[in-house]
């Protein structure tokens, strides 16, 4: 991971009609890093992504890709970007191969050999000559990935890429993205509303709500260690734990204590000695979902902006 900055979003705003959909958004993306873009429906994920790829124009602010502004040097900035916006819509009346030839012609220096290489990479060599209309959704996703990789992108943008894929397809897709990020040192930006998906795939998560970036965090950041203890009689257990000096929070049928693993055996001994029956002692991890819901206010869906 080189950690070189490839994308800089600077003070990005978008106003449609009187409504400010994106408010002063700042974000950097680095090579080799997969960043998830998470937010409730209508938070502005799709709008942000569309501005990043030139489908919509920012009202204020700018996006620099590889140091080139999308406003003043569109062709230069988008040159090394691969895009999958929602379901990749292809020309159904043409074969997969012709679709790739079509897109390859729109980039500089994509050779026939490169087209064949990409087809191999996504494993479509057997059906590439068939019409796209006959492909399954999974096949189309693969072709969508193939077209995004044609120009050897340094930056891949994916908007809800796993929509409509089955679990096996999602898994395959995930493995593939990780491989591309690591091996080719590509920065990847993935939007999704599927928390578990983002958690499994990403190194870093940017959370957006009502058009504002409310948090950026690393997925495997050291979490505060917490343990869940369930014991009966519970009042007595609480007393014992407080006497040891733990801060005790009621949770479900037991308590949560903030502590490191090395203090757990001692606590168990003291609890047993006090005649408390232990039913469960386990590390408690807050899932991304809990954090997300906490941050976005119980998953209340932001006022839906029309898509």
């Amino acid at each position, binding site marked *: 991971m080189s950690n070189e900055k490839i994308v800089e979003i600077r003070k990005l705003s978008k106003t*449609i009609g009187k409504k400010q959909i994106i408010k002063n958004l700042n974000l950097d993306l680095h090579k080799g890093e997969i960043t998830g873009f998470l937010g409730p429906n209508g938070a502005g994920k799709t709008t942000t992504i*569309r501005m990043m*790829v*030139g*489908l*919509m*124009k920012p009202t204020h602010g700018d996006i620099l890709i590889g140091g080139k502004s999308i406003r003043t040097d*569109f*062709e*230069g900035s*988008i*040159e090394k*970007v691969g*895009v999958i*916006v*929602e*379901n*990749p*819509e*292809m*020309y*159904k*009346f*043409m074969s997969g191969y*012709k679709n790739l*030839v*079509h*897109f390859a*012609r*729109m*980039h*500089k220096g994509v050779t026939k050999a490169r087209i064949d290489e990409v087809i191999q990479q996504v494993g479509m060599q057997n059906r590439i000559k068939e019409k796209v209309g006959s492909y399954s959704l999974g096949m189309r996703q693969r072709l969508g990935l193939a*077209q995004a990789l044609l120009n050897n992108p340094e930056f891949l943008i994916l908007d809800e890429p796993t929509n409509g894929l089955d679990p096996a397809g999602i898994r395959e897709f995930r493995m593939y993205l990780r491989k591309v990020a690591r091996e080719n040192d590509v920065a990847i930006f993935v939007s999704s509303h599927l928390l578990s998906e983002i958690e499994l795939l990403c190194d870093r998560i940017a959370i957006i709500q009502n058009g504002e970036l409310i948090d950026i965090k690393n997925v495997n950041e050291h979490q505060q260690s917490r343990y869940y203890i369930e014991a009966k009689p519970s009042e007595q257990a609480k007393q014992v734990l407080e006497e040891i000096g733990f801060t005790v929070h009621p949770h479900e049928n037991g308590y949560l204590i903030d502590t490191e693993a090395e203090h757990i055996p001692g606590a168990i001994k003291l609890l047993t000695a006090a005649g408390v029956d232990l039913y469960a002692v386990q590390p408690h991890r807050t899932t991304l979902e809990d954090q997300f819901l906490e941050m976005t206010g119980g998953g209340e869906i932001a006022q839906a902006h029309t*898509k």
Partner: protein
Amino acid sequence: MLKLIQNEWMKLWSKKATWIMATLLIVILLANAGITKWIESTSPAPEIGWQEMEEMNLMSAQDQLQNPDIGPAQQDYYEGQAAIAEYRLANDAEPFKVESLQQQVLDGHMMLSLVTLFTVIVGAGIVASEFSQGTIKMLLTRPVKRWKILTSKYITTMLFALLFAVITFASIALFSWIFFGIGDGAFLVWNGSEVVEGSYWAEALKLSVLSLASTWMIGTFAFMLGTVFRSSSLAIGVSIFLMFVGVQLVFLLQRFEIVKYYLFTHTDLTQFYTGFMPIPDITMAMSLIVLTVYFLVFMVISYWTFAKRDVTA
């Protein structure tokens, strides 16, 4: 740009509809030639010879020349017609029969309205279909500026029109050669001072280039509607409606000055060479200027909306 046009051309001919249109065009032209042949073979031989016909032409041309309302272009035309008819009678120079390759080729430009029709369909859909298929997202997220993409689509539409015009002429020549063969007669032109023999191919080419102005304008109009409204059916409907009704409106507007700036007064450039002019006092130069202004307006609207539009669908 060449690669972009290549792309558009490939997409166009990957659609079944395009092949159906090409087939339909050829079938219609074949049927047209066939029906002409059938009428000729079933109707009795004409009672009057070509000499009588020429005498009638001469008289009607002279009548027209007495008419004080005709414009300068019509004046030239009828003078030429009268001179040619006199020459034919004096020198025993027979005109082409309708059932001959030569006359069919000369009249071929009238068949170009079919080309206009198909061009409207293609022009209306070439941008709109990208939106309806959702492929516009794929197309515009490439390192190619939007105006270049739109230009490639416009050029492709015009190339399609040209190709179909060529197919039309090739089919007319082929089918009339098969059904009628090359007939006797001479093609005569009035060069302003005397009647000379001319090339009917050159004349046919001139008339069809002039006819294509209408294909070009209506095609551009459909292209604009398709780009602005992103709906090919709307663009096709409105364009074809105007193609038929627009010309009729010329007659309704005849009395008003505004008719001189109205698009359909000028779309038929062959009117300066066929004598049929609803508004006699316009000139070729004036028509070309009006058409150019309309063309620029259509183009500015198309490019402006296409370049500025936020793609949200």
